[in-house]
């Protein structure tokens, strides 16, 4: 892996951050569109019975936001893989900041670390994303 090349990406380069505050309405709509009836996402009193600090943002919603940071920050590149772990729960009203930083560049492929930062400065989600220069192949 090289530090920088004709791709224009440089190891250490940070993509523009994406700040997002999830709402209960967004969680409800995400549950609806994914047909996810898990009560921890839309029934706060039930979430409390499981010991959660509030409604829980869906893991896939949080991943989708983290991946938006990558796909919107790298037009002309295509996401080909991701690997992430959830470290802490996220609840409505929290300001979640999604970021990505280039960690390796090799020809037409680049690796990035991705994260979700919480107001306390800790990461709620950490992982990697692999992107490849898009060649406009039709699907």
């Amino acid at each position, binding site marked *: 892996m090289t530090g920088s090349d004709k791709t224009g990406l440089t190891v250490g380069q940070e993509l523009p951050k994406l700040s997002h505050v999830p709402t209960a309405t967004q969680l409800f709509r995400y549950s609806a569109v994914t047909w996810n009836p898990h009560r921890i996402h839309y029934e706060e009193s039930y979430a409390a019975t499981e010991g959660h600090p509030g409604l829980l943002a869906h893991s896939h919603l949080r991943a989708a936001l983290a991946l*938006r940071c990558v796909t919107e920050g790298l037009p002309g590149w295509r996401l080909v893989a991701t*690997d992430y772990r959830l470290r802490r729960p996220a609840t409505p009203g929290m300001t979640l900041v999604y970021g990505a930083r280039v960690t390796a560049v090799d020809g037409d492929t680049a690796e990035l670390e991705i994260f979700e930062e919480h107001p306390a400065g800790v990461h709620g989600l950490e992982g990697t994303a692999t992107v490849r220069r898009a060649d406009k192949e039709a699907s």
Partner: protein
Amino acid sequence: MSEAAPPAGTPLAEYYAHMRPRVGERHTRSLGVLDAVTIGRYALTIGATDPVHTDPAAARAAGYADVVAPPNLLAAIFEWGVGTPEDELKPDGTPVRNDDAGAKLRSMGAGEQMEIVADAVAGMEILEEEVLDAVVAKDTRGGPCVFVSTLHIFKTPDGAVLNRNRRTVVRRNPEGVA
């Protein structure tokens, strides 16, 4: 965090004993046709404003056959088709699947690995192959838990793979149980 069987006599121990021997089980099912409204609603909900998700003309101009799904849509759909009747849902609201023994447990997504091989576009018929990959009991700071990893391979009827994702869910005893 160390590998350790859940405390004997708890719902988590029962679940672990039920699931552990099933590692390697594989099922394939048809999920139906991915439609444009689902793609557009998903994009709207996650705030993805690229018109390739909502406007067929924009999608075609970008080289897609129709509107294209955001990268993790296939993995995120919890139930396909009409889903489970309410009176058949578990107390936490989730449907009973192949893990009846886990009905009383708390459940939360823990992470995922996803490889996107090809884009999923509106009108595609989708099949899912599911493999129970691993069932691992651990003792964590938050107490005993069982990590269940499942490999999901989404493909079209002709066998073309769209994406592979390995999802890990953490199961814990009900609140108040050690």
